[in-house]
């Protein structure tokens, strides 16, 4: 359950690297400005690229409605973990300084198209969006608050899986979040899971796949095991579309692939169908 995959081979990058963006799916080049202006969506192949948690919240939540919760709930280095390149504490502190986030999920109350919700958005730039004890605790608390206030839960996932630096307790977050979400669903509250690029490993194998509806964006990578691990197991090259949003929809694990521009309206529409 690696939380990040071995880095993909980098495509040939033109000299003015700072000015050019490369689509990770179709490898076409475009000025960075164009990539940004197009909301991190490739104009050639329609791959929906990664957004920071804050950018996502700005696009999905009604303006000024987001009220952040549990920011003080952060990582824990309960193993005093260190590896070949140093200790976990220094790594995660550097990530906090760089991203200005204190965990891999940003959680808070919000309204979406006028519907009150509990909204969690994962940020892949925080330790590969890995599921740590702080992440799990935020989700568990979000479920409790959502139940107390009768709010639907909406989570945008973006993660390589469990955070191995936090050892067995990161694995336990899969069970903890799944139990909390099960309780929320039993209480008659809706849970909409949005699996964004990429959602894999222990996150796809817990709360991300447990939505009353699971939705995603075009060409997102969604799966359990890593492509290379699977290729080594079956001794075969996998097709290009393996573990894509389209592949998942075809196999029955995704309710709908929704374009980024339509996400907010789609979520609001579902909530209004269900009377929330």
């Amino acid at each position, binding site marked *: 359950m690696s939380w990040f995959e071995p880095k993909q081979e980098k495509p040939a990058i033109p000299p003015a690297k700072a000015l050019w963006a490369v689509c990770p799916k179709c490898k076409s080049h475009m000025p960075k400005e164009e990539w940004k202006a197009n909301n991190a969506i490739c104009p050639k192949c329609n791959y929906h690229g990664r957004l920071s948690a804050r950018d996502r919240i700005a696009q999905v939540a009604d303006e000024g409605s987001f009220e952040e919760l549990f920011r003080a709930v952060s990582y824990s280095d309960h193993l005093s973990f260190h590896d070949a390149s140093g200790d976990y504490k220094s790594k995660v502190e550097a990530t906090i300084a760089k991203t200005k986030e204190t965990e891999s999920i940003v959680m808070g109350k919000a309204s979406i198209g006028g519907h009150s919700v509990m909204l969690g958005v994962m940020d892949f730039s925080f330790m590969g969006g890995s599921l740590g004890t702080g992440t799990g605790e935020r989700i568990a608390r979000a479920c409790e608050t959502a139940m107390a206030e009768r709010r639907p839960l909406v989570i945008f996932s973006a993660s390589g899986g469990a955070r*191995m630096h936090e050892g067995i307790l990161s694995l336990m977050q899969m069970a903890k979040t799944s139990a909390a979400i099960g309780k929320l669903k039993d209480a008659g509250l809706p849970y909409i899971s949005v699996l964004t690029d990429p959602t894999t490993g222990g996150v796809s194998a817990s709360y991300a796949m447990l939505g009353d509806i699971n939705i995603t964006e075009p060409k997102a990578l969604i799966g359990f095991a890593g492509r290379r691990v699977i290729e080594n197991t079956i001794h075969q090259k996998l097709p290009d579309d393996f573990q894509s949003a389209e592949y998942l929809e075809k196999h029955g694990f995704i309710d709908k692939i929704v374009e980024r521009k339509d996400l907010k309206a789609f979520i609001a529409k579902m909530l209004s169908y269900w009377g929330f």
Partner: protein
Amino acid sequence: MASKKTAAKTAQKTSKAKAPTAWDRVQLARDAKRPHLADFLREIASDFEELHGDRLVNDDRALIGGFATIGDEKVLVLGHHKGATVEENMEANFGMVNPDGYRKAMRLGKLAEKFHLPIVTFVDTPGAYPGDTAEARGQAEAIAKSLEVFAGLKTPIVVVVTGEGGSGGALAIAVGDRILMLENAVYSVISPEGCAGILWRDGKAAPLAAEALKITAADLAKLGVIDEIVPEPAGGAQKNHKLAAANVKKAVLKAIKELKKLATEDLMAARYEKLMKMGRFN
């Protein structure tokens, strides 16, 4: 909590003896001669009726389920299946479960709930099967759903980690009310080799990763992840299946007896709180 104290005490006792390293225990946990599900069932259960299939596509041979009698208790047994020979292991897919196996486990778990029979799970897998068909049939969804379902089954669940507790593939049948672990079993978010490959960029650093990940029974007792360490015969369970199994039987029956005293609401509340406490530091 009485069981937690027991775990700490056993942990202490274990560390006084010449303690094997984490990596030594990984080797013991993977020893081909170690007792597997079939060995435990033979020693512990006076009868066992296996039930097959997920009612969807398949009967996964890597995860076995059925009703059994252990002592005076009628229970549902679920467990990863590893064989003693290459042929048996091929059939059991080396204990690596496909989505079909987890769906079978959920189906049988719900059946046990219907008759309020305790569930005993035996955990021994390198991990969920990483294959293309496993992905196509929804490995992630099957594991996720198992976690949700077992957290909510209104019947006592006793988990015994007997060998390798390999990540999500192990956890999918390891959510319960009492988590027991054999002295030389290991339980980890990622295999030491996998972790070494990523964080050390060298698979040979696996012994270091095994140490850093804190994967032994004593470590997990300290972290509050397991409730009790089940002692093994000197040198490891592979030396004496009968004795290892007798210790497991004793611990399982004690746990069932304690859990059956609880009203269902109390059992469910305690299981939920047990999960919520995992990694609550803030």
